[in-house]
Structures are given as C-alpha cells and as structure tokens.
C-alpha cells in the first residue's frame, strides 16, 4: 500500500504518493488529539481544523477518490466522537472533502505551495458550508454561512496547511 505508483489520466502523468508505514494513521490520530487539546491551552487554536487539513493533504496526495472519501469518513467520525456534535456531522463534511480532494489531486498538480494554499482555502470554505448545511437541515441549527471569523480561519488554516503539508511531504516514500 505504501509503494508509489503512477496514475495515468488521459495524456497527463500524475504521480501517486506513498508514505511510510503508519504515517496516515499516526497523522490522523495526532491531528484529532491536537484538535481536541490545543484549544484547551491555546484558545485561539479553536479556529484550526487539523483533521480537515490532514484529510485534504492525504486526499490530494493519494489521489484515489475512494480512499480519500473513506479516510475523510474515518477522520470525520473520529472528530465527531471526540466532540459533542452528533456522529456524522463532520463525517459527512470530511467524506465529501476527501472525495473532492482526491478527485482534484488526480487532475491537478497540487505540489505547489500556492496551489495548496488556494485549494485548502477552498476546501475549508466548502467544508464549512457543508457543516452549516447539515446543521440547518438535519439539526435545525442555524449557523451563519460566512463570517469574518470564517475568513480568518480560512486564511490561517490555509497558511498552516502550506507548512504542514511541507512537513508531511518529508514522510513520503521517495
């Protein structure tokens, strides 16, 4: 599973990255735990969404929609289980994000920092939109779709994603 191979779509040639053993699982666990504990000590860390960044990154890197959406499902449900939200709220959002990231990663070169910044920002907004939609439709909870806090969080997470993805790139198998 961790062996690298090439994915051919049309005439393009996009490399599918593999990671060291346990990298994905360990990254997910660390991200979820950090997401839970960081806001306790750093209140501003509440705007971070590390599980989402992990989902996006591995989705973009693995470039397999099925794997990406299942990973998003796993991460989302894990995040739900550690929060007070009903199981499935973040699960649905991250499932879709995992699928979209994998699909886009299979078509675009997502190795450039600017591309990563832009994609992460876009996915962050989409993720928030999905969460708001699910909350409104299923939980009858009205949340604003766009706020300044969302904009700041989008930028912060996107910036963070650039550095985080750089670190994670070190764990790839060459």
């Amino acid at each position, binding site marked *: 599973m961790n062996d690298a191979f090439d994915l051919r779509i049309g005439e393009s040639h996009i490399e599918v990255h593999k990671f060291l053993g346990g990298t994905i699982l360990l990254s997910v666990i660390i991200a979820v735990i950090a997401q839970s504990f960081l806001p306790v000590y750093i209140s501003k860390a509440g705007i971070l969404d590390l599980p989402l960044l992990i989902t996006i990154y591995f989705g973009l890197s693995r470039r397999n929609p*099925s794997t990406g959406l299942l990973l998003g499902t796993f991460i989302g449900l894990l995040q739900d289980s550690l929060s007070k939200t*009903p*199981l499935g709220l973040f699960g649905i959002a991250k499932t879709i994000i995992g699928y979209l990231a994998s699909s886009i990663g299979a078509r675009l070169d997502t190795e450039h920092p600017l591309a990563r910044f832009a994609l992460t920002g876009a996915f962050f907004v989409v993720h928030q939109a999905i969460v708001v939609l699910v909350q409104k439709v*299923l939980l*009858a909870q009205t949340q604003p779709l766009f706020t300044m806090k969302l904009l700041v969080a989008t930028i912060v997470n996107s910036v963070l994603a650039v550095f985080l993805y750089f670190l994670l790139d070190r764990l790839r198998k060459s």
Partner: protein
Amino acid sequence: MPALPSRHRSLFLLAGVVLLQVLLLAVQIKTVESADGSRSRLIRVWSVSAVSPFERSGAWGIGRIRDAWRHYFALSDTARENESLRRENGQLKLDVMQLQGKSAEADRLAALLNFKQKQAKVPMVVARVIGSNADANSAVIFLDQGQREGIKKNMGVITPEGVVGKVIESYRDTSQVLLLTDRDSGVGAMIANSRVQSPVGGMGEPWLNMKYVGNDDEVKVGDRVVTSGMDRIFPKDLPVGVVSEVKPGNSFKQIRVRPSASLEKLEEVIVLLTTDPLSLKQDTPAVPVAGNAAAPASASRPSTQPIFGLTNPKPAEKHP
C-alpha cells in the same frame, strides 16, 4: 454484470458513505414533532415520511377496490341482507303491535279490576267477549262465562264506561248479550240533570234513540243520559250515553244518544250477577259536558263517567 468505471465506483461509494452518515445522524437526532412537545427521532420521522405515501396510496387503492366490490359486486349479499332486515322489521312491527295490544289489554283489565274492587259488595263477574253477532241485523256478543259463573238471563252487562246490554241467553260456559244498539234492546234511562225519564233503545246503528221525551222537556245536546233503574235490570245512574242530537217531533223529541261504552270494540265486560234493584252512588257530582248546546252531533265519544259505587237500594226505590 459489467464493472463500473473507477470514477463511478467512487461516486457510488461517496453517496453510500454520505447516506450512511446521514442515517447515523438521523438515528441520533431528535426533533420536535408535535405541538405538545413530544419528540421523535428523525430517523423515525424520515421512515414514516418515506413509507406513509406508499401506505396512503395502498390504503386508497384497497379502499377503492373494496368500495367497488361492496357497491357493485357484493350486491347479492346486500339484497339478502336487505331481505333479512325487512323480515326482521316486519317481525318487530308485529311484536310492537302485540305489545301495544297487551298493554291496552292490561289497562282495560286494570280498569275492570279497579271497578270490581270498588264494588266489592256487588256480585259481578268479569267476562271476555269471545264472539259477536252472526248477522248484520242484530247486535249481540258472546261471553266466555255462563251459568257456572252464576250468569242468568236478563242480567245487566256493563263496562266501567257505561251500560253495554243485557244477557239474553245463558249457557253452561257461555252467555249471549244483547247490546244496547240492537233494535230490540232498551234500557230505562233519564237525563242526568233534568231527571227527565225515557227509555233508550237501539236503532240498529251505532246511535241510541231516546224515545219518549216530550217537546216541552228541556234536553240539550251534550246532556248525560244515565240509567233510571226502572227496568230493574241496571242500577240507577249508570252512564248510558250523551245526547248528540235533539230535534222536535210530533209528540216527542227526536233525541239521539251516543253510547258511553265502546260497544263496537268490546273485549271485556262485567256481568252484574243480580237482578235485584241496585242504586248507584257517584263519588263525583254529575257535571254536564261543557258547551252542551253548541256541541256538534259528530262530537267525539263522550268522556266516560266511571261507575264509582253501587250501593244498596233505598227502600223508597221500588221499581214496578
């Protein structure tokens, strides 16, 4: 089965995973369902919402089929049921009529019993009418009591409403009674108020005729006619009838009297088991019918004056 392209497989997988999580959410979520605040799980609401249209459609379809069956194809059962209900209705009507008859009979018997109890000192027997005249020219009835009960010829027959007639034949267990309306019948009578006396006889019709009242005597329509006791058959002051028509005649008035007793529908009567003179004492004074002069001849049957008390005859009342 052809394999789905990888892209489509992932799409199906995405849809399935999202759907599963939506269901997972629905299982967990409770939503306010009714005005009273009761809450139902969203999955239950969804399930009901998803299933109920089919149930409603099914129920509608089945209802239409059932209605069609009932209204068009099961008419034979309806006809049988209708026939059965008609028979049952007829039987019930018959039962009601029988009960009404028994109720009326009970009332009549109660009146007779009451009368008999009040006249405890007067020997009498209650008899049931078992037959009537065999020809149209006579007015007779047959009673189910006869000589064994002490009934003899010329005994008076009455009802609580008034005079009926007299016994003309007595057999062992049967007796024959000549009604007042017969042409050959007659009873000593008088006008209750004026005390004008005259025999009253039948004319072969429902009315009686008061024969010998002079043109100078005052008689008005509505005057009560009672027995005078002169015939030595009936005690004095028994109701005979009510004057319904008065006309002047050559020597005597032509007076028609409506019988007090319902002679055309007798069912039980009282036979006075004595031919000794008796006198009647009424508990209430004899009151003329209001508006006597104006009362039409076709007025309804006069209100009966019950016979309240038969007393021993006074020594002075000796009948010829």
